[in-house]
């Protein structure tokens, strides 16, 4: 390392050639300077310039794009270093740097890092990946706020006055955001024609933003009104950095001389006088990469620290005389400026001009309060003076004629293609209670209504001002411009809407909305899904493409496809792209081949062997609620024929538990009351559940569970038409439903049938006389009684209690059987599932037995043992699928009724009921 230090009155130079540092940062106390490069982090004390630099090895693949120390004294040791896609937060303790956090979320190189000026925990980072992230050091896993954008971000800066406002630069555009509303920018400024390199907020004024750009200019914006740059500083070369000075009203600018020719100078400007820079710092032999300011504690001097590509660190003394050049001496100027802004009438420049003229201090007693202490309003003395003081920089407005001699003025406003010309003449008495006369030229291209409105605004504003004997030209023109803009903007938004619709149509084309792809996840190219019971469906890329990118991580978002090439890329070409860069033609042909090939195949595996459930077993299992022991033995045989000796043993054990213990046992107590026998079944079920064998567990639950049996007799339901719930199925839909029948002739209920799903015919009184054996009302959903198998009738020794777990196992097994299409077995299991005891809402069908005239809620008369419904076509009692009219109650075999009504509309009995149409209405009801 060569450290050449030489003192002069002006600066210190230190050369650090081996550092290869690409970023420099000075901490908030001005004690340390950090020089960060690919291989080293260098740290130097600025107070002791003779001290050698401390080096910390980094040896990273990536350069440091930018670095910044925390601006807060309480965490002055924190430094954020952006390298590639990560920001590392280092802390300096006992002169050693150590990494404490790593903030990673960006997918491209980070281009900007900035600490919040108010909250030391917040850091904003931006990258070309279009995201701006705000991080909170208290939770560094992920950004607290994500600001998304269309274009990549070059730079991010927090406002120095407001803790939530930040500015981002996107190419030549600037967006102002409020951290609390990250979805949309507060302002969008089309600032420059080429890339913006640097953003800086005015440290004293909240809304002042300076942007420096490749297009050789620095622009100053009022972010509250950013239609046009307030002022523009032009340079001979692209501006790399431009920041406000910490003293006075100055700006320091770094320019990049084109073709490396010319001076690598730093230009200091006084913003009050923008004709020429007030000072030039010459010395660096290559581009100045970064500069920072520091103030020494016991000195009036500021120091400027610069780091250049020539690998020298220079420290420049900024003595008070230089600071004065930037306007520090005019300490009151800033005050006046702010006051005039709060007044909103007289801009800075007019004040500077008015310095030579006399200043009227209005003494009407009305104190206009502003943030500053001195409530002073300045009034021009004469029309001449007023004209000279008018700030002509009103957006969209040009002053064509300002003739104080003829007391005339012409103003042209041009906005969105509309032009309004206003002639203003000032009568002699003006502004003492005499308002000027306004006229709008007939050549103006706005409609008469708007003309009238504009005139009214002008006159009103003028009256308000001259009443107080104040000059009124500028306020009038500002009001006028605002009104015009407002009126035309509303037209604008309509146009924008139309445009939006147009775009909406265009957006059907995918390539046009690919800019949104940054938020769309990268498409899945492989996957596996379980289906039905034990099936696994897999799909994926061919192994050619999977092997092409072995080292690379799959990108996060779909936009990765676009960023590799201009043309729209498809997913397969993405995977070929590694080689394709060099040989695009070959790449394309490979991709086509692979597209044609079996790349798009999907493979279905039978993974049922992974599961303990077995379909063959489910088919062989039997149910017998009257003899549990026999059932268990049968199932044991079934299991052994399928080679499941383990289950065969379990079932034989279960059979032993179930069968009556023989009295010749030595035991005094019967086996069935022995606590072990009960525990055996319980622990068997628990064991199989822990093995996820729902089948065996559910079968045991059924065998030792309680079978749901019919209620003996429930009170007859009268014709009920309750307000039917929303899920009433129409008759037609209902019998088309696969796998279920309208009547459940099986005893017990099918809990899979939702309440209201079963349609119910209701009886109409007139049908009584027509048929003896007609359906009156049929109850399908009935309250069920649970009849536990009593140990005394010699069926089972062990009965499981009703437990929600056991119900769940049975239901899951039912679903599995359903998926296997084993509907008989499913029905058998369903008999053991306790139905939900909810009250059936909707139509309740009742039947009346034609022989005993009893009314039943189920389709079988318990006394006569005959089905209650007799088919009106074939006059045979109906077993199985049936249907009936809701209105007349006539019905019969589903097939018969269906055939009849395929050609007829009226009831086959001749009762006159238009079953199809009328019945349908009732259902609708």
């Amino acid at each position, binding site marked *: 390392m060569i450290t050449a230090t030489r003192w002069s009155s002006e600066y210190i130079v230190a050369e650090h050639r081996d550092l290869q540092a690409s970023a420099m940062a000075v901490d908030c106390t001005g004690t340390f300077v950090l020089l960060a490069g690919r291989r080293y982090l260098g740290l130097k004390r600025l107070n002791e310039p003779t001290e050698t630099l401390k080096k910390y090895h980094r040896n990273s693949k990536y350069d440091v794009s930018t670095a910044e120390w925390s601006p807060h004294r309480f965490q002055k040791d924190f430094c954020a270093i952006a390298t590639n896609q990560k920001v590392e937060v280092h802390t300096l303790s006992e002169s050693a740097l150590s990494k404490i956090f790593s903030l990673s979320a960006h997918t491209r190189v980070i281009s900007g890092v900035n600490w919040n000026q108010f909250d030391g925990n917040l850091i904003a980072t931006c990258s070309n990946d279009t995201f701006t992230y705000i991080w909170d050091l208290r939770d560094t896993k992920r950004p607290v706020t994500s600001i998304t954008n269309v274009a990549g971000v070059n730079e991010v800066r927090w406002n120095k006055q407001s803790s939530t406002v930040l500015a981002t630069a996107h190419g030549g555009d600037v967006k102002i955001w409020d951290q609390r509303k990250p979805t949309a920018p507060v302002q969008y400024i089309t600032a420059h024609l080429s890339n913006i390199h640097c953003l800086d907020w005015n440290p004293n004024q909240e809304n002042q933003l300076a942007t420096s750009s490749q297009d050789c200019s620095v622009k100053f914006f009022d972010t509250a009104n950013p239609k046009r740059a307030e002022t523009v500083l032009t340079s001979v070369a692209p501006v790399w950095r431009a920041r406000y000075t910490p003293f006075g009203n100055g700006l320091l600018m770094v320019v990049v001389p084109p073709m490396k020719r010319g001076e690598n100078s730093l230009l200091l400007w006084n913003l009050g006088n923008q004709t020429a820079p007030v000072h030039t710092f010459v010395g660096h032999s290559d581009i100045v990469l970064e500069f920072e300011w520091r103030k020494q504690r016991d000195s009036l001097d500021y120091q400027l620290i610069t780091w250049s590509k020539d690998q020298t660190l220079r420290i420049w003394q900024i003595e008070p005389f230089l600071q004065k050049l930037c306007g520090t001496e005019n300490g009151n100027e800033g005050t006046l400026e702010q006051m005039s802004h709060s007044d909103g009438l007289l801009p800075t420049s007019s004040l500077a001009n008015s310095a030579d003229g006399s200043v009227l201090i209005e003494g009407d007693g009305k104190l206009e309060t502003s943030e500053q202490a001195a409530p002073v309003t300045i009034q021009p003395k004469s029309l001449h003076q007023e004209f000279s003081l008018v700030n002509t920089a009103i957006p969209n407005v040009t002053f064509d004629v300002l003739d104080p001699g003829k007391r005339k003025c012409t103003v042209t406003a041009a906005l969105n293609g509309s032009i309004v010309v206003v002639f203003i003449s000032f009568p002699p008495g003006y502004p003492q209670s005499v308002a000027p006369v306004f006229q709008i030229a007939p050549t103006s291209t706005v409609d008469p209504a708007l003309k009238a409105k504009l005139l009214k605004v002008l006159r009103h504003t003028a009256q308000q001002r001259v009443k107080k004997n104040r000059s009124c030209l500028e306020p009038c023109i500002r009001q006028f411009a605002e009104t015009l803009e407002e009126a035309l903007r509303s037209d604008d938004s309509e146009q924008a809407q139309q445009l939006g619709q147009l775009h909406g149509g265009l957006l059907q084309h*995918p390539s046009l909305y690919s800019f949104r792809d940054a938020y769309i996840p990268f498409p899945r190219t492989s996957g596996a899904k379980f289906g039905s019971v034990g099936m696994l*469906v897999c799909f994926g890329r061919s192994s050619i493409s999977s092997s092409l990118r072995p080292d690379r991580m799959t990108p996060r978002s779909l936009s990765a496809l676009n960023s590799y090439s201009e043309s729209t890329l498809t997913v397969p070409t993405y995977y070929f792209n590694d080689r394709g860069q060099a040989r695009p033609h070959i790449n394309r042909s490979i991709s086509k081949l692979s597209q044609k090939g*079996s790349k*798009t195949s999907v493979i279905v595996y039978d993974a049922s062997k992974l599961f303990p459930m077995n379909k063959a077993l489910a088919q062989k299992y039997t149910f017998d609620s009257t003899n549990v022991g026999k059932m268990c033995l049968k199932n044991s045989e079934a299991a052994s024929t399928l080679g499941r000796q383990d289950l065969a043993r379990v079932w034989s054990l279960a059979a032993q538990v179930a069968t009556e213990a023989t009295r010749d046992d030595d035991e005094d107590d019967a086996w069935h009351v022995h606590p072990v026998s009960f525990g055996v079944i319980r622990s068997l079920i628990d064991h199989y559940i822990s093995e996820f064998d729902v089948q065996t567990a559910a079968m045991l639950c059924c065998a030792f569970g309680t079978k749901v049996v019919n209620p003996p007799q429930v009170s007859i339901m009268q014709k009920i038409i309750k307000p039917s719930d929303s899920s009433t199925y129409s008759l037609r839909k209902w019998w088309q439903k696969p796998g279920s029948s309208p009547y459940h002739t099986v005893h017990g209920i099918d809990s899979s049938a939702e309440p209201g799903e079963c349609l119910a015919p209701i009886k109409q009184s007139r049908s009584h006389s027509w048929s003896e054996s007609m359906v009156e009302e049929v109850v399908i959903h009935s309250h069920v009684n649970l009849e536990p198998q009593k140990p005394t009738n010699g069926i089972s020794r062990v009965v499981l209690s009703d437990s929600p777990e056991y119900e769940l196992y049975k239901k899951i097994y039912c679903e599995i059987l359903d998926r296997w299409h084993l509907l008989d077995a499913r029905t058998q299991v369903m008999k053991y599932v306790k139905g939900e005891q909810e009250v059936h809402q909707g139509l309740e069908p009742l039947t009346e037995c034609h022989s005993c005239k009893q009314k039943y809620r189920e389709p079988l008369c318990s006394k006569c043992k005959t089905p209650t419904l007799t088919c009106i076509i074939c006059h045979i009692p109906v077993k199985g699928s049936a249907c009936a009219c809701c209105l007349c109650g006539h019905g019969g075999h589903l097939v018969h009724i269906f055939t009849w009504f395929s050609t007829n509309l009226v009831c086959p009995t001749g009762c006159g009921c238009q079953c199809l149409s009328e019945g349908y209405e009732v259902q609708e009801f």
Partner: protein
Amino acid sequence: MASLVCNIDTAHEDIVHDAEIDFHGLQLATCSSDNVVKIFGIKNNTQSHIADLKGHYGPVWQVSWAHPKFGNIIASCSYDRKVIIWKENQEWTKIYEYNNHDASVNSVKFGPHEYGLILACGSSDGAFSIISHNSTTGSWEFKKKINAHAIGCNALSWCPDGRGPKRIVTGGCDSLVRIWEEGPNGWDEKAKLDAHSDWVRDVAWAPSIITNHTTIASCSQDRRVIVWTSSTGNNPTTFVPLVLHTFDDAVWNLSWSITGNILAVSGGDNKVTLWKQNSERHWTCISDVSKTQTHDQRQL
């Protein structure tokens, strides 16, 4: 362990993004970047092409089958911001199109059949929608929950238990997994699961055979699969995360077996791994590497 049933050449012109088998295991639906959804019959180990469903104007990301009690119905979601519901009445036709999202719809799933014909979809505009069919009026109704996830919602999954209130789990670009429950005033966030450090790519709510026990799996661009468990009964709000494994590449697909003890995981490395929970509730990888190899070979 697993035997091949069939290898279907879908003849899709571009990469396949999703494939799902129906309830009975008789039909397969696939979707692709070529904008088409295809239906295949896979009965008795033979395959037959049943239909090509064309209606999307962008890559179709996901398909989902409805419960067969509603008929043969599938839903598909696409980059073109639409969700289309298709039904087989003699032939497959579009019965409803939902285009109330402002960005690509990334995920679509039918809910448990107990709630009726209902589906949820999540979009890159940050919102998810619940679309339901009102069987009384025959009309479709929807509820949209905006700002469910900052930047975008990438995946969602229904709570498979069809008895309690409707619940779904979503995963998004804010690296969070969120659990939502339908209340009287719409969908409310019940829990926010925070452990991933990058975009969440898929979430899957496991079917549970143990009452009062909830398991959810999530996978992310951060290459991790996390299994979240809660034993706090019917109203799970606190979850314990367990990192199942850190993979070599981003993980983007999860699927639970019907009993909730085997999880299929796949990601950018083009491999499928199966993870099984043993009786001590420990997770082990049970998939044999040869299987994925044959899988690839067959695709060549």
